């Protein structure tokens, strides 16, 4: 079938997964469904010990078998050791046909590509895949199509039972021997454990892996003992230098600063820039600069931010400290300062990824957002955004919360340079649609700003704003004028990846790269 954004989704894929094609951002509004439930084991005897001596023992006690689904979180980002550590043991035990259901996978997980080649890993469900895993997927090595979901979409899929986790491995900076785990403390501090909260609640078996055992009770706990089967202490769960950035650099790139200036003006002149407004930025150069540029305008107009969310970094934490931001709700810390803030500031809260963005619960922070600033690899003239497939046709990115907050917010702004090297960012048709165009409101480039024509209200609101507005078609034409019109990337028919919309409908598919061409 051809779905609502004009993407061809093979019928056999829809049938095999029991899915529908994408039909619009609010298609499943008010739909009732029964939540999935885990098969749990009661820990009744007070003398029962949850400590296991190593990962092998944990796997054995959880009765690891061929074909199981193992889950992981990515709070340790590029510093994560947990995925590779567990999978090495799984491989050593001769187990095969494993599906990895991770909140994201990154550059740290290249060794998994080898397990894909060997048939030890045959399924990947993740927000992101990078490096060798992405290459293995795009070259057709993974036995089943990778399922790419947004952060909110992953929680939904687990809660609706689209994926059932047999064993969840939760790397935790600190835990007590009874499984109360926290994102703070220890030597691999990551601030929060938001992504793994759903895993703890919906997995049949839950194993906490830590490198810092602390006295009972480790409270307030991010992951509760009520959900944890076993606790395993290892030497190191990650590389602290790669888990967080010591200080995220402020961009000096004049192009990024110019785009940040445009974006700041758009926010300040919009009808939503009022006391109590809410905001999410990423850690990208331009979007981070907006935080800093917005601050003097807020001070001048005596406007306070009701809450900030995200990917938390130092500039926002400083605004919280100085009273310009009333609350930070945090599902991921990006730098040292944000971790210090969540430890010390009473208005800086850890939230679950369900609270952040699960579209099928009864309300999320994403729905309460005014402004979001996002990036893009490609944006097409229908405003569809690609953040997953590179210009070489290989899967190498992550939607993360992109589709969630674009859909939830009142004003979603994409910042991206018009061209990167020879690759046009604004194009006729994105290789892979990850965030549907009807949820994307403004595109800011270094050559001009396009407002989605669906947003007649915003076009009206900016009629006295002096910024280089143009149409998205004009942006595309400027890009093609500079770099030439790109040829289409050659793909085979075989589907190697499924881009699931946050509500579980199918937005797009990724096909195997045709390297003969």
């Amino acid at each position, binding site marked *: 079938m051809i779905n609502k954004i004009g993407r061809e989704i093979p019928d056999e894929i829809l049938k095999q997964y029991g899915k529908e094609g994408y039909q619009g951002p609010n298609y499943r509004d008010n739909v009732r469904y029964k939540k999935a439930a885990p098969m749990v084991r009661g820990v009744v005897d007070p003398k029962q010990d949850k400590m296991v001596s190593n990962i092998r023992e944990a796997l054995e006690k959880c009765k690891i078998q061929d074909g199981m689904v193992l889950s992981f979180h990515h709070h340790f980002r590029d510093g994560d050791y947990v995925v590779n550590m567990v999978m090495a043991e799984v491989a050593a035990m001769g187990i095969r046909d494993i599906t990895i259901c991770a909140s994201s996978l990154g550059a740290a997980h290249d060794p998994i590509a080898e397990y894909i080649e060997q048939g030890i890993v045959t399924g990947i469900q993740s927000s992101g895949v990078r490096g060798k895993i992405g290459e293995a997927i795009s070259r057709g090595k993974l036995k089943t199509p990778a399922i790419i979901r947004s952060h909110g979409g992953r929680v939904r899929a687990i809660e609706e039972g689209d994926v059932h986790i047999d064993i969840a491995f939760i790397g935790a900076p600190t835990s007590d021997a009874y499984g109360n785990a926290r994102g703070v403390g220890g030597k691999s501090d990551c601030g929060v454990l938001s992504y793994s909260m759903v895993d703890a609640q919906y997995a049949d078996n839950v194993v906490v892996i830590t490198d810092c055992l602390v006295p009972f009770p480790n409270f307030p706990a991010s992951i509760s003992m009520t959900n944890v089967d076993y606790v395993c202490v290892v030497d190191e769960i990650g590389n602290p230098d790669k888990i967080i950035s010591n200080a995220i650099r402020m961009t000096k790139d004049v192009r990024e600063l110019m785009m940040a200036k445009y974006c700041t003006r758009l926010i300040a002149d919009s009808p939503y820039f009022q006391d109590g407004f809410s905001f999410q930025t990423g850690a990208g150069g331009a979007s981070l600069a907006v935080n800093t540029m917005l601050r003097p305008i807020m001070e001048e107009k005596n406007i306070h931010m009701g809450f900030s969310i995200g990917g938390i970094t130092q500039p926002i934490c400083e605004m919280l400290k100085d009273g310009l931001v009333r609350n930070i709700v945090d599902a991921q810390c990006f730098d040292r300062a944000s971790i210090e803030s969540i430890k010390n500031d009473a208005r800086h809260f850890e939230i679950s990824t369900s609270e952040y963005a699960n579209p099928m619960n009864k309300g999320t922070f994403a729905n309460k957002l005014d402004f979001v600033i996002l990036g893009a690899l490609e944006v097409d003239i229908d405003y569809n955004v690609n953040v997953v497939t590179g210009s070489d046709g290989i899967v190498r990115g992550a939607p993360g919360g992109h589709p969630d907050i674009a859909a939830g917010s009142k004003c979603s702004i994409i910042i991206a340079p018009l061209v*990167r090297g*020879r690759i046009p960012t604004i194009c006729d048709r994105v290789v892979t649609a990850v965030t549907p165009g009807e949820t994307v409101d403004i595109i800011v480039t270094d050559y001009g700003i396009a407002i989605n024509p669906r947003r007649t209200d915003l076009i009206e609101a900016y009629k006295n704003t002096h910024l280089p507005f143009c149409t998205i078609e004009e942006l595309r034409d400027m890009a093609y004028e*500079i*770099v030439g019109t*790109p*040829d289409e990337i050659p793909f085979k028919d075989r589907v190697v990846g499924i881009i699931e919309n946050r509500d579980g409908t199918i937005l797009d598919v990724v096909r195997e790269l045709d390297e003969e061409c």
Partner: protein
Amino acid sequence: MVVQKSAVAGTLESSDAQVTVEPGSGTLELIVESNVIHQFGRQIRKTVLDVLERLEVTDAKVVVVDKGALDCTLKARVECAVYRSNDITETLPWGGAIK
């Protein structure tokens, strides 16, 4: 022009291309390596071949290692490499064979 000896122009920096020309074995042989090969490989070949035709190079081995260079950069690198292979580095025909 005849490619007299091997010559190089350009770098491997992002948005540049490194072009190497060598005397050929009777034909024009073009090898293109690019990080944007899928979307622009065809256009890179065409641009390079157009320049070689304009410079009347018919017998050479040309290797282009492209890092996402724009057409203007590619043209300049090919022209430079061909002239260098003839030791011509001054009084170049600006506006003539070099567009």
